[in-house]
């Protein structure tokens, strides 16, 4: 057994932390306030390989691993959860399913642009009537012989307004229920593709969360990902990996909130002493440190198993479930430790608390994670 990070992974943490502190943190409060997508940082993330970490160099990826990817999302989210999820949704939900399920032609066509970060990616599963019940897909894809004709819409799509490539799910045979769902690679430039409503959210306000609308969208025959009917499997396995990313986002939010709170507690004096010297408050911090570290171990283990090509879905679900609850608890307590100041936008913990909530909701709510974990515990 070995709990130490590889040298590469240590360097990735050092590099991403430096990048995050210099490039991301300075704009984090502004993009939140202005609900502005941080477009200026996407080419920078691309330049340094942050948008293609766990993919081979032949597709212009960084040739890294999933533990490094986890660390990257964690470190970005430590200062800005919006930036963390740009990386996570792009990598886990768009590039990965193409890498894992794509034909050689699909990989050669789409991966270099995605892994190099020249184009951003997104993923479309959720619909107004198909959230946790993903099987209730109403988007339909009809085989027209020489192309697919897709009609329907997807909501809450991360990177939706800015991405150029999407992996989306659509029903090709309703009678087969989940086995009638198929996955497709869709380009923003396709005829019939449009962006609908941009969501106005509680947190991750800089993230572009959009509705995708498909009106008689013509999709080339060869853009089906996997075989007809594979879509549910593609979506579920993609989300297994996505949960590592969202768990890492939650972990980063928690760590970031705690880091700024510890600094605050060292400086803030009440009753003639520093908050950092008050045992009741020190105990709160001790509890948070312990929980954050436990969340980290769960998530890194999930990433480690994925790197070793071992089953990791249950670990990803446990890591995401636990880390997101720890993020919510940590940020709530960090606001408490800041007192009234923590409720103002002058301190980042206010934003972090709003950002944390989404991690309990997207890429499977906490309840869905528990279904996955219980399924593993009971053998379904």
């Amino acid at each position, binding site marked *: 057994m070995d709990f130490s990070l590889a040298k*590469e992974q240590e*360097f990735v943490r*050092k*590099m991403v932390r430096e990048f995050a502190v210099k490039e991301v943190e300075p704009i984090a409060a502004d993009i939140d306030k202005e609900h502005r997508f941080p477009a200026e940082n996407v080419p920078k993330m691309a330049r*340094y390989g942050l948008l293609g970490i766990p993919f081979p160099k032949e597709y212009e*990826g*960084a*040739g890294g691993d999933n533990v*490094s990817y986890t660390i*990257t999302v964690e470190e970005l989210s430590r200062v800005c959860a919006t930036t963390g999820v740009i990386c996570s949704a792009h990598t886990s939900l768009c590039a990965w399913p193409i890498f894992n399920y794509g034909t050689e032609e699909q990989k050669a066509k789409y991966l270099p642009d995605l892994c190099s970060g020249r184009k951003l990616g997104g993923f479309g599963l959720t619909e107004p009537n198909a959230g946790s019940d993903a099987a209730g897909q109403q988007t339909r894809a009809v085989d027209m012989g020489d192309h697919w004709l897709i009609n329907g819409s997807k909501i809450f799509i991360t990177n939706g307004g800015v991405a150029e490539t999407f992996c989306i799910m659509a029903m090709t045979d309703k009678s087969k229920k989940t086995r009638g769902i198929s996955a497709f690679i869709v380009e923003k430039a396709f005829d019939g593709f449009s962006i609908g409503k941009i969501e106005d959210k509680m947190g991750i306000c800089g993230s572009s969360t959009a509705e995708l609308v498909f009106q008689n969208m013509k999709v080339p025959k060869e853009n089906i990902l996997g075989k007809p009917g594979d879509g549910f499997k593609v979506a579920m396995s993609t989300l297994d990996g996505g949960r590592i990313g969202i768990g890492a986002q939650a972990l980063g939010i928690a760590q970031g909130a705690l880091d700024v709170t510890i600094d605050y507690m060292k400086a803030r004096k009440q009753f003639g002493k520093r908050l950092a010297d008050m045992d009741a408050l020190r105990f709160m911090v001790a509890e948070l440190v312990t929980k954050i570290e436990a969340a980290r171990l769960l998530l890194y283990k999930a990433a480690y198993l994925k790197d070793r090509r071992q089953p990791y879905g249950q670990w990803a679900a446990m890591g995401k479930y636990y880390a997101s609850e720890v993020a919510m608890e940590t940020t709530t307590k960090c606001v408490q430790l800041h007192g009234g100041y923590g409720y103002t936008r002058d301190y980042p913990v206010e934003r972090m608390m709003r950002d944390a909530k989404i991690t309990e909701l997207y890429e499977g709510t906490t309840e869905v994670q528990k279904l996955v974990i219980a399924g593993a515990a009971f053998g379904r």
Partner: protein
Amino acid sequence: MALKIIVCAKQVPDTNEIKIDPVKKTLIREGVPSILNHDDANALEEALKIKDKYPDTHITVVSMGPPQAKDMLIECLAMGADEAVLASDRALGGSDTWATSNALAAAIAKLGAFDLIFAGRQAIDGDTAQVGPQIAEKLNLPQVTYVTDFEIQADLKSITVKRALEDGYEVIEIKTPCMLTAIKELNTPRYMSVGGIFEACKKDIPVWGAAELGVDPDKEVGLDASPTKVFRSFTPAPKGKGEMLEGETEKDVARKLLVGLKSKHVI
């Protein structure tokens, strides 16, 4: 013809509050995180910018230091250098600038022909700014220090640099091969890239001792061969605590400041 560039880099402690060993009079490095020296990062960045423009440029980073300085060299490789070499040997320990430049000049000579050497102006731990110029002297090269602007012509031989002075600057033309020392105004160093990190960690970084360098441990390198002897070093007494002035308005504070300065006969 591809350019060959040597970059001299040093691993330094990441702090301005350096502790000094009271007996040996040298820096205590234990427990202090180590980084790539800032000016050296500027030196490497300028070399990398040349490589961005002329991709067949080959960059070798040379350093002298303890074995753990390899981590700093991995960082240089992850930023985009092609190759790195570490001069490391107990016999090199305690070298002053003269002995250090002997070792580095020997390492550079061993690497073979080159067009350009870039070094940082100085290291934040020793602050001497001597090693770069000494290497140039020992390799019989023209040198320009305090480079704040750099341009190489398409012939890859003629270079125009701007040299920062205390009260202005000089514009100097120089031909390769030559030695330049960089200051932080020259550029903004890039980060490592993730792809670079994964490649760098696989690369072999040769470690050369005194024997491989062909330097004499008694006469050229190490503590005993170093002409500089540190007699005494001390930490300056900290300045007294500053007085914080408070007031309702900025004008109030300014008034208090004036009164205070006058009462102390500063103005």
